[in-house]
């Protein structure tokens, strides 16, 4: 800053306070070239080693479950009672299950459904929860009170119970299980979003938009939803994990998917007996897959939360 030069084109107003030295820079100073928010978030995420491991696990399982069957062809539709419960061997790397299906192929197929149900259920819960929570948070007053008491009521009933009862009525397909789980797990996201909306509603930038004359719709679409989104996105990963666990419990309690589809949970439905019968290959591999994927979702969600925090925390 020792040299004099042409006035900067943009910030060409000489700095009033330092008359001795006309500056090249605009009065407000240059903008530091920083990593973008997303890159910061990515960096924070990647610095969490557990999360990277989790992400790796997720990617691995998604690839293995959805692409694996293209390379590892197995019969997963025609039950064959004559080759049931076979031990692992050369033809069946992880043995066969009680339908005579190849267990490894079954794990891939079961992983597909588990991931699909988890994802669809989470997505649905998120959409419903976001709209519901945003409505309650924005309208406030008595509407908010009534809506949130309803949430309280539903939250007081164990989700497992509701889903179990419904599962006795509806035959379980990927779609119906996603629907049932999704339709009843939006409660937590709705509370989260409501809380977020209540906080955002009084943030200065929202006040500023109102002062400019912004319509309610614009406030929601341009400010509230984008800002509440990170909370929602983080919650999706947890919802996926919870949904996969929930269908595992359903499977254990005997309300699995309809043949020939199966999710990991259904495959574990007879775990106790399989172990006692000595069919360990029907229990531990799929159990470990389930735990790993659920854990990976949780790890990723946890790290995403931290990462998003960092992105907004930076001041």
């Amino acid at each position, binding site marked *: 800053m020792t040299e004099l030069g042409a006035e900067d084109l943009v910030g060409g107003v000489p700095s009033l306070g330092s008359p001795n030295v006309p500056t090249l820079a605009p009065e407000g100073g240059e903008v530091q070239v920083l990593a973008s928010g997303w890159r910061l978030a990515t960096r924070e995420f990647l610095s969490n*080693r*557990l999360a990277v491991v989790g992400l790796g696990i997720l990617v691995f399982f998604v690839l293995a479950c959805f692409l694996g069957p293209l390379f590892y062809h197995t019969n997963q539709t025609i039950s064959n009672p004559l080759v049931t419960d076979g031990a692992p061997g050369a033809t069946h790397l992880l043995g066969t299950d009680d339908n005579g299906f190849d267990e490894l192929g079954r794990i891939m197929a079961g992983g597909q459904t588990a991931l699909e149900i988890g994802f669809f259920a989470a997505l649905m819960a998120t959409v419903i929860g976001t709209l519901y929570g945003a409505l309650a948070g924005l309208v406030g007053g008595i509407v908010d009170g009534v809506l949130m*008491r*309803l949430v*309280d*009521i*539903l*939250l*007081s*009933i*164990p*989700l*497992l*119970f*509701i889903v*179990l*009862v*419904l599962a*006795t*009525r509806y035959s379980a397909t990927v779609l119906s299980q996603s629907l049932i789980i999704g339709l009843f797990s939006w409660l937590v996201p709705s509370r989260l979003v409501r809380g977020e909306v209540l906080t955002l509603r009084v943030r200065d930038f929202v006040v500023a938009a109102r002062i400019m004359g912004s319509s309610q719709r614009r406030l929601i679409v341009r400010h509230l939803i984008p800002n509440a989104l990170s909370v929602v996105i983080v919650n999706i990963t947890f919802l996926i*994990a919870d949904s996969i*666990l929930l269908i*595992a*419990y359903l499977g*254990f*309690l*005997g309300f699995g998917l309809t043949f020939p589809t199966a999710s990991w*949970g259904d495959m*574990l439905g007879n*775990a*106790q007996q399989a*172990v006692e019968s000595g069919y360990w290959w029907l*229990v531990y591999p799929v*159990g470990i897959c*389930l*735990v*790993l994927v*659920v*854990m990976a*979702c*949780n*790890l990723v969600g*946890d790290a995403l939360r931290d990462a998003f925090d960092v992105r907004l925390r930076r001041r």
Partner: protein
Amino acid sequence: MTGYIVRRCIAAVIIALGVAAVVYLLLNFTGGSPAAAALGNHYNKITAALWNKQHGYDKPLVVQIVDYVWNAIHLNFGYSYKQGQSVAALLNEDAGRTAYLSGAALVLALLIAMPLGIAQAVKRNSIGDYVATGVAFTLYSMPAFFLGLILIQFLALDLHVFPAFVGDNVTTTWQAVTHPLEMALPIVTLAALTVASFSRYMRSSALDALAQDYIRLARAKGLRERAVLTRHLLRNASLPMITLVGLSIPGLLAGNIITESLFNYPGLGLLFYDALQNLDYPILLAYTLIGGILTVTGNLIADIAVAVADPRIRLD
């Protein structure tokens, strides 16, 4: 404070009534028939009509709900034909055992989670922190039945450290208390469900508290680190845990279903599990209703406890 409690109690009652109505509707909606469930293989048109009339299931749904709630208020939850006893008696019998199992699991979870969470916060990003985090996530991600199964297989059947199930010598609550060896695996399994989330929560709560200036000031006073943690950190970091414990009740109730059926422990969860298989309506209703009430009162108690423990909160 009294006014607050009264208002919260009224809210709790409203929520409980709502729960009753929702559950009743839900069960009705599933299309099962209480008559079929009660009559079993003797169910047919003649017996069903008779049974429905006798038990009021031929009335309009709204009347049934009102009747049910009215009776429930008088602690009459109906009669289980599958079990040949009034539901109230069944619940009464099993409640103590379930309370002990859940209570012991909860206490165990807290006893592990709180010191662990604090230790993790103090030694954050150390190897120990990572290991504890990994274990917590693994437990958190494991279906309870899978964990129970592994515990049974290895600790009971292979190593013979604990019995694989709760034996016939444990039938009363007191016997459960006096047979720690038999209760070890069920309690551990149930505790594992919550210990993971508790310790994660405790860790972040302790991290928040550690960042507060009063911790710095306590150190500046010359207090030993241990005294800083016990006198200044523990109470403040534990406050959010009270709420969490209140919120964990539905999860514990669900966990009981799994744990009790896995370990042959005659409690409410098992009662519910059997009832579900049989669509034993009165039990399903009562269990869920009581679960709802427990949840609501649990949250209520938690709120009051927080207010008692945290001088900043005034209930009015």
